[in-house]
């Protein structure tokens, strides 16, 4: 049954993509294709190529779209996206590095299983073309997130300092993130992080990144998948996203017109909490 569903999903994606290509509205459709044992991003330009299309892989594809659009002076790009990819594109458009008008999306709603794997709280794009949305997921429904929240503060300290101690400072978390792309990175400056020392000092390395990403992270989990040491960074970021909602009622990747509350004063973005409650 599940296999049939999967086949129906990919047929549907193929059909929409080939329609786009046939009508000539896009220069190509960006998606994933299977190569031997892994998937890679690929720009499909003919109907035949869509044979190799893959929609079950995970890949933060927004950065590829960003590069393609930068290379082409004009023309539109079709792109097969999940909810997280859509949020990436919206965050990139806030930074003016992607023009959403040049993008035609084929939205893919994640399956229940996929959402669980990613600890995703919003496993669907705003426009869904393939699959059926399972709706929002409460973070307490994800066992590990709920467990992290149940820990008391000293348990948490033990948990995170042990786990951060595994870090080999490969910068995979930073490099895999489509939104962590400052030209000069604080994590490379000896003023903030000691050079040539592993594991990095607690809490500098990880908290500097966590704080920088707080008003950008869309919770895609690419950092966590990239981490060779199994540090659950994605879960940390999901919890920080919950904090952003609680403090500022702000969620990244929803509306390209939204501005980060950290950039604005209290009149424009008032606090959602009473100060004396804190």
């Amino acid at each position, binding site marked *: 049954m599940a296999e049939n569903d999967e086949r129906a999903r990919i047929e549907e994606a193929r059909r929409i993509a080939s329609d786009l290509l046939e009508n000539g509205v896009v220069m190509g459709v960006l998606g994933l294709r299977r190569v031997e044992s892994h998937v890679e991003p690929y720009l499909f330009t003919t109907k035949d190529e869509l044979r190799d299309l893959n929609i079950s892989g995970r890949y933060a594809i927004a950065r590829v779209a960003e590069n393609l659009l930068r290379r082409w002076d004009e023309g539109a790009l079709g792109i097969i996206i999940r909810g997280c990819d859509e949020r990436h594109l919206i965050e990139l458009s806030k930074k003016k590095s992607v023009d959403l008008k040049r993008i035609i999306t084929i939205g893919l709603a994640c399956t229940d299983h996929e959402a669980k794997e990613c600890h995703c709280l919003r496993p669907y794009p705003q426009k869904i073309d393939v699959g059926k949305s399972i709706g929002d997921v409460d973070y307490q429904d994800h066992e590990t997130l709920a467990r992290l929240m149940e820990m008391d*503060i000293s348990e*948490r300290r033990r948990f*995170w*300092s042990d786990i951060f101690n595994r870090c080999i400072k490969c910068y995979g978390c930073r490099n895999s993130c489509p939104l962590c792309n400052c030209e000069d990175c604080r994590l490379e400056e000896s003023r903030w992080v000691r050079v040539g020392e592993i594991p990095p000092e607690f*809490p*500098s390395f990880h*908290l500097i990144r966590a704080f920088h990403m*707080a008003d950008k992270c869309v919770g895609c989990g690419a950092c966590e998948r990239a981490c060779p040491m199994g540090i659950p960074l994605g879960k940390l970021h999901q919890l920080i996203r919950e904090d952003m909602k609680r*403090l500022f009622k702000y969620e990244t990747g929803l509306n390209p017109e939204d501005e980060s509350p950290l950039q604005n004063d209290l009149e424009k973005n008032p606090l959602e909490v009473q100060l004396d409650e804190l």
Partner: protein
Amino acid sequence: MNKPLTAEAGEKKTELEFVPAIAVFHCRWCLPDSDSVRSLLNEEVAAKSVVIPLNCTARMEAEFAIKALSEGFDGILILGCEIGECHYRTGNHRALKRLLLLRDILALVGIYPERLGFFWVSPFDQENIRLTINEYLDKLQELGSFK
């Protein structure tokens, strides 16, 4: 100021011997002089602490606080103008938001959020500033060393 009489209170006294090292960042519009800010700390704490003037608390980056913890400080104290009194109108608004968020992030990884103290003070009420700082230091003593 009462001397502890019971054994229990006596034990507490040993704990209290811990002297926290803190990094103080203060706005130079409400508190222009770092030396007088230092004089608000008790002598033992002052000897282990650094006091750094900022042009506005908006200059306070999360990195300053995070790095201070990494470097062995037990607390970070930020003193700025009252909301509405900022020389740059809304500098402290931004600082407040950033610090609230940082405090939450510290708590998520198990660092007592009380280690990050930020207070908006009036330069005309030095007594209140002193009380605020003392309360903050008491809390830090209770929490003990960060490392």
